[in-house]
């Protein structure tokens, strides 16, 4: 590999990193939103992402079984179905495991979250089996951006799909938070839950909707993961969840742009580490970031210092 080849290798890894980072970013949003509004880490969120991937797979197989084989239409329907059903899971998790503990001691919902995570993993393991579930590649093909010394920089259609979908969702979501009544209520709850209720905001409903939206975004990430890697199992939520959580902390927990930025950075770090050092240690690299950020930059890149939270 010559000097040019090295640049191309880096470019390829960069593209791969952005695609992976988009997936982490979508999941990280869910962590950061819930933390912002009720100050807890929803450790079951990674498993909601996993459930989303399974629901997408089931929805796809069901559509194929009823004879729907036009892939773009099928994918669109799968997206809608998986988002809706996963949102229902997100809602149920909050309703069952967290709401009864509101006003309880601070660790209670965290413990409940870990319990919920185990419940979801076991539930999928038992109902869907422990084996890896494959999906044949649906979105194939792509573009060769550069070719030199026999090394081609590829931009695959699936990567384009992932980045575009993420981009569109982020725009829609930012608009929702900044410009709609629900978004305003969510920000009010995030800044002062009690005051929001003193202005007539139904805080329970707003919190529920926060979980619903976070779960729907995680479902999209689940579909992307399924399409990108082609295999899923009941355990993918754990590793992806902890990485997305790391992304949220890196970006600044509670900050929405921070979650997206953190996702992209973690995706990039993981990919580049795998490319240049060792693929076995890619998770170690990602989690070392978590430790380093917590020690040296606890508020994250775009996070606010705690002083502002009165």
């Amino acid at each position, binding site marked *: 590999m010559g000097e040019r080849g090295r640049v191309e290798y880096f470019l390829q890894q960069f593209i791969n990193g952005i695609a992976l980072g988009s997936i982490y970013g979508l999941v990280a949003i869910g962590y950061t939103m819930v933390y912002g509004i009720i100050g807890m880490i929803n450790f079951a969120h990674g498993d909601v992402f996993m459930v989303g991937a399974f629901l997408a797979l089931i929805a796809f197989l069901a559509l194929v079984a009823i004879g729907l084989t036009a892939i773009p239409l099928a994918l669109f329907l799968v997206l809608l179905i998986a988002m809706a059903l996963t949102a229902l899971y997100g809602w149920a998790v909050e309703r069952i495991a967290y709401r009864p503990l509101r006003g309880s001691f601070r660790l209670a919902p965290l413990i409940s979250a870990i319990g919920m995570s185990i419940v979801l993993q076991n539930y999928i393991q038992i109902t869907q089996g422990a084996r890896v579930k494959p999906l044949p590649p649906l979105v194939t093909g792509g573009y060769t951006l550069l070719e030199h010394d026999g090394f081609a920089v590829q931009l695959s259609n699936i990567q384009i799909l992932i980045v575009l979908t993420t981009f569109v969702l982020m725009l829609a979501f930012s608009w929702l938070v900044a410009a709609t009544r629900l978004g*305003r209520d969510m920000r*009010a709850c995030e800044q002062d839950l009690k005051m929001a209720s003193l*202005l007539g905001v*139904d805080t*329970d409903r707003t919190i529920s909707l926060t979980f619903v939206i976070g779960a729907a975004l995680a479902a999209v990430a689940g579909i992307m993961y399924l399409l990108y890697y082609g295999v899923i199992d009941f355990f993918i939520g754990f590793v992806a969840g902890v990485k997305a959580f790391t992304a949220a902390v890196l970006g600044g927990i509670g900050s929405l742009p921070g979650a997206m930025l953190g996702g992209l950075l973690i995706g990039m770090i993981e990919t580049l580490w795998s490319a240049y050092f060792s693929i076995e240690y890619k998770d170690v690299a990602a989690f070392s970031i978590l430790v380093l950020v917590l020690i040296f930059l606890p508020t994250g890149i775009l996070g606010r210092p705690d002083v*502002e939270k009165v």
Partner: protein
Amino acid sequence: MSAPLLSIRGVKTFYGNIMALAGVDLEVREGEIVTLIGANGAGKSTLMMTICGTPPPREGQIIFDGRDITRLATHEIIRSRIAQAPEGRRIFPRMTVFENLQLGAAVTEFVHFDEDLERVFTMFPILAKRREQRGGTLSGGEQQMLSIGRALMSRPRLLLLDEPSLGLAPLLVQQIFGAIRNLNEREGLTIFLVEQNAHHALKLAHRGYVLVNGLITLQGTGRELLERPEVREAYLDGGRVPRD
């Protein structure tokens, strides 16, 4: 005489095992300014929050406009047109003045938003100037005006004001109290005011109550209470009534 707008009967409120209100009875009639005075920690703010159901009372009853609101959720109580400008103002720091006011108007479904906004801006012109500024960047006095303005955006039938004069310069206190008097006299708004500034509050109010350790120990017209030696002793600087 018609039934009071707000009637509180035997209300007991607890924080964990600690009793903060030990059986409070109190009434606010339509068109009145009623004030509640008392020392720090007597339970004044707890009573304000208990009226709004956060926390709800463990015992007793709260009737608003003929309806039992004791067990309603906070947002339902607020939607029955009680508004509170709470202790510490609680402005949303990372929202603009305008957004803070929008949140105040939510219970009206924004049907007369522009009109109400105009009214608040007329009452506190500085808020119009600060319209796009974040709440956290306002001065204490501006935040207090925003807090009251935000409460008014919901067109309340009863306005709860918790220590609106706290931490403000004397001139601002006069301005705020003047605004409160205008609201009551010109618009007939019913106001329940909690104050440590007993002198000002009792001069302004039609009636007043004194709260000591979670119990009402005295009540009467503002003038009557101002004359009571125990009130002067405890709340009016040893009986030396300040001039204003």
